[in-house]
């Protein structure tokens, strides 16, 4: 059982972290490429959050199975704090995105329609 986990888990962790890194790259590229403030918030507020959650989840699996294979339970349960971090990021990042979009809408920043110049 331990050998099965030992051979199947590192590729799973590497795949999870690679997919998370790809989403964070898409988020940063969207910040540079999109033509308007509202569309830039679309790219970063969603892709960034999901990429980050995937990377931290991969690190949680790595710590639980590979980092300390024979230690006692109290050392293995340290990454429960990472679960709190994931839950907090899922709640906090969309709320911050929504707050700043509401402030921009009420102050008068104009949205972009197809065919306008880049702003």
């Amino acid at each position, binding site marked *: 059982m331990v050998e099965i986990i030992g051979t199947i888990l590192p590729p799973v962790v590497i795949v999870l972290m690679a997919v998370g890194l790809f989403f964070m790259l898409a988020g940063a590229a969207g910040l540079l490429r999109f033509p308007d403030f509202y569309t830039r918030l679309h790219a970063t507020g969603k892709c960034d959050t999901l990429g980050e959650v995937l990377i931290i989840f991969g690190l949680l699996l790595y710590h639980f199975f590979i*980092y300390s294979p024979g230690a006692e339970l109290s050392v293995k349960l340290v990454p429960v704090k*990472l679960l709190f971090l994931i839950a907090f990021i899922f709640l906090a990042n969309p709320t911050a995105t929504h707050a700043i979009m509401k*402030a921009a809408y009420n102050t008068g920043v104009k949205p972009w329609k197809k065919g306008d110049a880049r702003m």
Partner: protein
Amino acid sequence: MIEEVFMREQVFLPIALVIAFMILLCLYRAALGPGVFNRVAAVNVIGTKTIVLLVLIGYIFDRPLFFDISLLYALLNFIGTIAFAKYLERGEIWSR
């Protein structure tokens, strides 16, 4: 057969370098973006990427107690962005 030193040096270090490079990319929008709202959004993104970078560095240098620092920074980043948005919308943060 894959042991933990291999994971640390050959998987985590390139990922941390790519994330640090993306923080440099976001500085372009923070310096250039017309108006103040683009800059606040860019600073929020840089804060989000810093949280992941802190956890990764904690694993590379064999100090897994870095989670506490990144949890604290997640809270500070969230509160800072909301305080900024409230100030830009109303002109004050807390009114009686």
